[in-house]
């Protein structure tokens, strides 16, 4: 243990070399801006910079790519809060309360919380990564298709906790998302499904397209239809500033979000999105005012933001310790390691300790730098929330359309995004929440893979699902999720009625 921190100190010293500091700063700033562009997230950021970064010296290259990764996480919250467009699937939960806060003129507070959450989540994630990388990696791979199936059933059930006015509509939206997730080549046999005879749908529909359409374009279509006074936004400079007291008030959500994010993020394939959902639901369950969630609750920003940042370090564990990429972004990072001539895997810590510790050191420095940068930028960014839609939206629409086009250089993608804009508009008018759709689209395919892989291996024998203790435990918690509230509601109906009366 003590030895680990000694190695880290050495790494911090190595990462303080001017060349590496420059690489960190460049990577962090580029990541921040790519993350803040609607529709582009950390995966796109790392992919864009990879060909350039590998021409640097080894440590600097990975320090820069890592900085792009966590920089984009910081930046992703910016678009989620200011425009309501998640730049990456893991920022979807941030939209729920963050965007509501911005609409109410509290953009600065929301951004401040997200920076604090990113920092705390990053720090806790990093500390756990530094201390337990190899131990945790071994536990993480115990999660196979059976356990993944259980975890996904649990995550999807959390839609019931996310609430909203109408749970039925939330679940309809979720199932629509699960269906969208099945579009493309079937993950098990490779046969095309719902491709409408078009090869361009073979790889499914890109997350950014859905995010930009459903959240961005739909909102921008809906706004002109609303009356000018619907949202009261009185510009006060004080509201542009992040406040330390708010951050301290959310400390519980920050810590629980970070821990959940880290441990779910470690699981190969589960990813940060499931982590943000669980963190949000947990925060809501623990909260004394669950009714404020979804309506601009600070805790609703703190929990998922802490979770997705912690998850980004969690997902690096399988890569560094086992040579297995735990997420789309780490798969590209691993390509970077290979291109600079390093073989990620169980031997990396033993054969390249200087490199690994210098990279870890660079992560700490990068996180500190990002807090400084984002706090300085917060008032400026928050002011965007007060721009009149007439000025703001044309610019945003141009950027998002360009962003979508740049992913595959495809006008088809642009048309799809506009199509989802219309779908999102109709859903908003009919009161269907868009968030469950995105979650269904991201998690549904993971559920399908879990079930089908299990059944291929067991030759259709369903009893294997009940032979895994981890899976059984998760299923038990899922059942409790539905039964306990129902029991509580029955027992405390009278009490609840009096509380509501008092509250009103």
């Amino acid at each position: 243990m003590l030895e680990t921190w000694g190695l880290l100190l050495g790494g911090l010293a190595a990462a303080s070399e001017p060349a590496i500091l420059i690489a960190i700063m460049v990577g962090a700033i580029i990541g921040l801006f790519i993350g803040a562009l609607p529709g582009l997230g950390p995966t796109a950021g790392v992919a864009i910079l990879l060909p350039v970064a590998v021409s640097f010296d080894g440590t600097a290259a990975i320090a820069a790519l890592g900085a792009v990764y966590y920089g984009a996480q910081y930046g992703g919250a910016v678009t989620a809060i200011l425009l309501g467009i998640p730049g990456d699937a893991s920022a979807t939960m941030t939209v729920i309360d963050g965007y509501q806060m911005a609409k109410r003129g509290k953009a600065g507070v929301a951004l401040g919380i997200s920076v604090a959450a990113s920092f705390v989540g990053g720090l806790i994630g990093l500390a756990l990564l530094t201390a337990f990388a190899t131990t945790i990696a071994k536990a993480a791979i115990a999660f196979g298709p059976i356990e993944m199936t259980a975890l996904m059933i649990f995550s999807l059930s959390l839609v019931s906790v996310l609430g909203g006015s109408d749970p039925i509509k939330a679940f309809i939206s979720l199932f629509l998302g699960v269906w969208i997730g099945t579009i493309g080549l079937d993950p098990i046999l490779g046969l095309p499904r719902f491709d409408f005879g078009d090869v361009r749908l073979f790889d499914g529909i890109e997350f950014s397209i859905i995010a930009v359409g459903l959240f961005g374009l739909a909102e921008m279509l809906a706004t002109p239809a609303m009356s000018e006074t619907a949202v009261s936004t009185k510009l006060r400079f004080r509201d542009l500033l992040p406040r330390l007291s708010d951050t301290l008030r959310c400390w519980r959500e920050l810590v629980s979000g970070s821990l959940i994010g880290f441990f779910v993020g470690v699981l190969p394939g589960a990813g940060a999105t499931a982590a943000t959902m669980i963190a949000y639901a947990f925060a809501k369950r623990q909260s004394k005012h669950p009714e404020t969630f979804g309506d601009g609750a600070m805790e609703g920003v703190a929990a998922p933001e802490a979770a997705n940042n912690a998850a980004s370090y969690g997902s690096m564990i399988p890569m560094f310790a086992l040579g297995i990429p735990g997420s789309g972004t780490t798969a590209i990072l691993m390509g970077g390691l290979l291109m600079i001539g390093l073989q990620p895997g169980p031997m990396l810590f033993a054969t390249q300790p200087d490199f690994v510790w210098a990279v870890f050191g660079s992560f700490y420095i990068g996180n500190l730098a990002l807090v400084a940068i984002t706090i300085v930028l917060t008032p400026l960014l928050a002011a965007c929330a007060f721009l009149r839609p007439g000025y703001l939206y044309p610019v945003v629409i141009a950027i998002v359309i360009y962003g979508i086009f740049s992913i595959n250089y495809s006008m088809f993608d642009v048309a799809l995004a506009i199509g989802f804009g219309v779908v999102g508009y109709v859903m908003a008018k009919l009161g269907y929440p868009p968030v469950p759709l995105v979650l269904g689209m991201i998690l549904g395919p993971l559920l399908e893979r879990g079930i089908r892989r299990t059944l291929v291996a067991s030759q259709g024998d369903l009893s294997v699902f009940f032979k895994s203790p981890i899976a059984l435990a998760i299923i038990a918690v899922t059942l409790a999720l539905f039964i306990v509230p129902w029991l509580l509601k029955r027992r405390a109906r009278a009490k609840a009625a009096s509380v509501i009366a008092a509250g009103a």
Partner: protein
Amino acid sequence: MEDHISSTVGGITRRSVARTAVAILAVAAGLGLAGAQAAYPDKTFQYVVQSGVGGGSDILARTLAKILHDEKLVPVNMLVENRPGGSGAIAYNFIAGQKANPYVLGGVGVSFFTTPLLGKMTVSYKDFTPLAAIARSPYILAVRADSPIKSVEDIKKHPGLTTGTVGAVSDPALLATMTSQQLGTEIRVVPYDGEGEVLAAMLGGHIDLVYGNPNEILEQVKAGVLRPLAVSSPERMLSLPNVPTFKEQGYDIVHTQLRGIVMPKGVPPEAIAYWEGILKKVAEGDAWKTQYIQRFNEEPIFLDSVEFGKQMDVTSARYEKLMKELKLIK
């Protein structure tokens, strides 16, 4: 359409259209007389990768581009461009569509054969010109170090073993079917989304066997986590001299992944000859050995256009047979 343009913008457009037409004709004539002018190559090459940045095909392309540039093997640049999507269809449709254009190149991956076989593309592997293969990646069959299976023969004693593969149709899936048939047993093939996931499932004990590229497996073998049982190349691997081939153990299983480069159909023979020469120099040079072969633990090889073309026929036929067995196609 043209009338509309000229009526709105006037004579300038019409003149520039005419000028462009003349230029196109000149270029076309120039290509026709490529031999006479001997100017090939005189513009930037475009290497289209069918997957995203950082994957195996992308790394191959970028390493090749770097070596061509560093060693000044070609007088012009080669730009690597990623056109992922459609399970390879986007990139391969694009390359095939550049018919007779000797400035477009691409790499051969599994989807090069399988996506056209699904019948959803208008092109097939026959719409490309093979240039050369410059590396070969055998597959290593391995088990966990604590597995009771000590040899290929032992697989028979444990019916219903599972293996992981990237997608239903892949080289490891092909090898698993071959092994099942040769041993007269059944190996269940569980499809995953990437090599990393397969390895995670293997290390976590969720599958029993893995057929992997040396690049993925050797590191785990060195760490004492996995135990190799056989290699799928015709001869033993340089990096694993103690591991026998399937052939040596009496099984008729030889299948390797060739790292080959193609161009669209109909390119002039001079272009093929030119690239055969360049790629031979690359394959036999030190830069390729240190920056690709050794780094990724692959085997050095050079196949010219004709030989590589023959291998493409064999590979496509194998995939077709497997896909029929899986009832993916009729």
